[in-house]
């Protein structure tokens, strides 16, 4: 890879000291986001995907957490940056939207005021110009009668409309990167389809890269270009979306695929992953997935596997099993049962 990616995350760790011990929410996470691409970060609750997303914006309070490693956005280091430097990055270069648009919008300010504020904090413009820009953005995300909706309060909108307003607010300064943290989880499936379509359309139009954090592999398959699969604070696999679904190289990804009931076909029994995710305070010394893995052997318990190429240069996985063995297991045991 010749040129520097838009966002470069290397060995990122976010730890929270608690009375029970150090919670390693994110532990040695590395990935790149290239300009204009949609990267899916998929994982179950507690996998650290949302914590990582917030870390990209430097949103974790320094007093309550310890963030180490490297997050480099367009050449600028985020981890350890001064508050003022982070502030100028937030909203103008990197924007974020969240799972629950109702609680994420201030209940006592109008939608329009919240949008204008986001624009004016990074652009020296008059109130009138900011208002015009906000109305333009509301129209762009498909809010009917945008000029009138400008004065509406969040509770007067439906869930889908609120998320549209959040997207409008996030993109109002034309950021290079949008972090969408479970943006459709709180929405109905027909509205989810609209919102995903909107995010996809706008990322094309604005040329923004998107980090789409989700628990839903279906959302990943239909929206993303590349995927990072997270488990217990670590990345277990990352690949091009086609590679991930056609040749997954991590037993955890196999387990996820085996767990999902399908809308497009009737499956027999599901093949769930046994047991439960480990405690983030007391992670296994070796591979974090080893206690639940059906293919674990000797070194898995003691030695932490590194993220290494599996099949192609762009396809990385964290697993001790030799690559040919994994390819064989996928082809003969896993894929036929799906």
């Amino acid at each position: 890879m010749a040129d520097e990616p838009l966002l470069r995350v290397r060995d990122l760790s976010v730890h929270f000291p608690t009375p029970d011990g150090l919670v390693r929410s994110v532990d040695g996470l590395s990935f790149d986001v290239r300009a204009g691409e949609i990267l899916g970060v998929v994982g179950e609750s507690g996998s650290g995907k949302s914590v990582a997303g917030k870390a990209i914006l430097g949103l974790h309070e320094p007093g309550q957490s310890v963030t180490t490693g490297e997050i480099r956005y367009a050449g600028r280091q985020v981890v350890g940056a001064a508050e003022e430097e982070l502030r100028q990055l937030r909203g103008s270069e990197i924007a974020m939207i969240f799972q629950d648009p109702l609680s994420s919008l201030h209940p006592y300010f109008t939608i329009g005021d919240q949008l204008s504020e986001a624009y004016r904090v990074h652009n020296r413009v008059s109130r009138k110009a900011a208002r015009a820009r906000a109305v333009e953005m509301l129209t762009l995300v498909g809010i009917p009668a945008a000029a009138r909706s400008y004065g509406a309060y969040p509770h007067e909108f439906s869930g889908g409309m609120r998320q549209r307003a959040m997207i409008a607010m996030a993109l109002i300064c034309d950021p290079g990167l949008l972090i969408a943290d479970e943006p459709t989880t709180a929405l109905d499936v027909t509205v989810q389809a609209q919102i995903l379509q909107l995010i996809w359309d706008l990322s094309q139009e604005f040329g923004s890269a998107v980090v789409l954090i989700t628990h839903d592999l279906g959302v990943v398959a239909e929206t993303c270009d590349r995927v990072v699969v997270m488990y217990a604070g670590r990345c277990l696999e990352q690949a091009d979306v086609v590679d991930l679904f056609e040749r997954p190289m991590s037993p955890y990804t196999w387990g996820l695929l085996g767990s999902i009931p399908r809308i497009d076909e009737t499956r027999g029994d599901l093949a769930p992953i046994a047991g439960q995710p480990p405690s983030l305070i007391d992670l296994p010394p070796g591979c974090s997935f080893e206690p639940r893995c059906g293919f674990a052997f000797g070194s898995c318990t003691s030695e932490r596997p590194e993220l290494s190429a599996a099949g192609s240069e762009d396809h990385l996985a964290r697993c001790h099993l030799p690559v040919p063995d994994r390819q064989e297991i996928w082809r003969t045991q896993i894929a036929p049962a799906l």
Partner: protein
Amino acid sequence: MIRYAANRVLGALGVLLVASVVTFSIFQLLPRVTKVDMAFYYTGRNTSPAQAAAVSERFGFDKPVWEQYWTWLSGIVTGRDLGDGVSAVHCAAPCLGYSFRQNRSVTEMLVQAFPVTLSIVIGAAVLWLAGGVAAGVIAAARRGSWFDRGSTVISLLGVSIPEFFSGMLLIYALTAGPSWLRWYSGGITYVPFTQDPVRWAVNLLPVWFCLAFLITAVYTRWTRAAMLETMSEDFITTAKAKGLRRRTVVGKHGLRAVIPTVVTLAGLDLGALLGGVIIVEYLFSFPGLGRLAYDGISTKDLPVIMGTTLFAAFLIVVANVVVDACYAILDPRVRHGG
């Protein structure tokens, strides 16, 4: 909206009516419990039985209770004449009773005392609201700092030192303490605002501090807790993610969210305190409603006690209506919910 307001006012009138019945009943029961004829409460202990009987008849204490209540209640609306012959007095509407001990109508006494209490409470409210909310917000924003710890200790002192103790210290220090502190060597007396605004304020200052000290402590602790809760809300994360300055995040988005509840709390406290701040008024010998009630009780002047009680109830009901109205103005969700 208008119907809603009308409903609220009607409800408040209903509550007042109930309060009047309860007040009246309690004071009807009093002579029965103490086995002292009602007439003695009006005329004093030295009355002969024959005189007492005459008084009873003149004021209608021998009539059925409901009839007495009706006379008393209609007197509030239309005024009434008490007694007959040479001793007859007219008590103009709104007649809350007539004190034969002092030969004045209770309403007149209330009208005279209320400005004193109002002066004390309003001034103290400005102090405790400004001080308590500001201290609470700063303590929450700098959680764990020296300011936070210091304000916690001072709050704890404020809550645990009773106002008669702090008030006595204050009076002693300012009037008879060391010479550099003896700012009020002439004594602290109430001067009406209309007479001399400067001396009004100067003389009220120690009273304000005495009353506000305890309440400020309560508001500081409460505001700090409410702010801390608010600062963990999703919309605060959104505000940070927009790139707003920390000052704006705390002072605009955070503070705005706790204002409706601060206003509610302050409104109810004001309503309760305006009915009379007995201890403080007694300590400083300020002729307010609390002092009036206290004197009424100590001289067993029944009409005065009833009048001050009902007036205090009226103020609390008014405060409730005002608080509801403020909430509807401050919280758009209530405003639109109807």
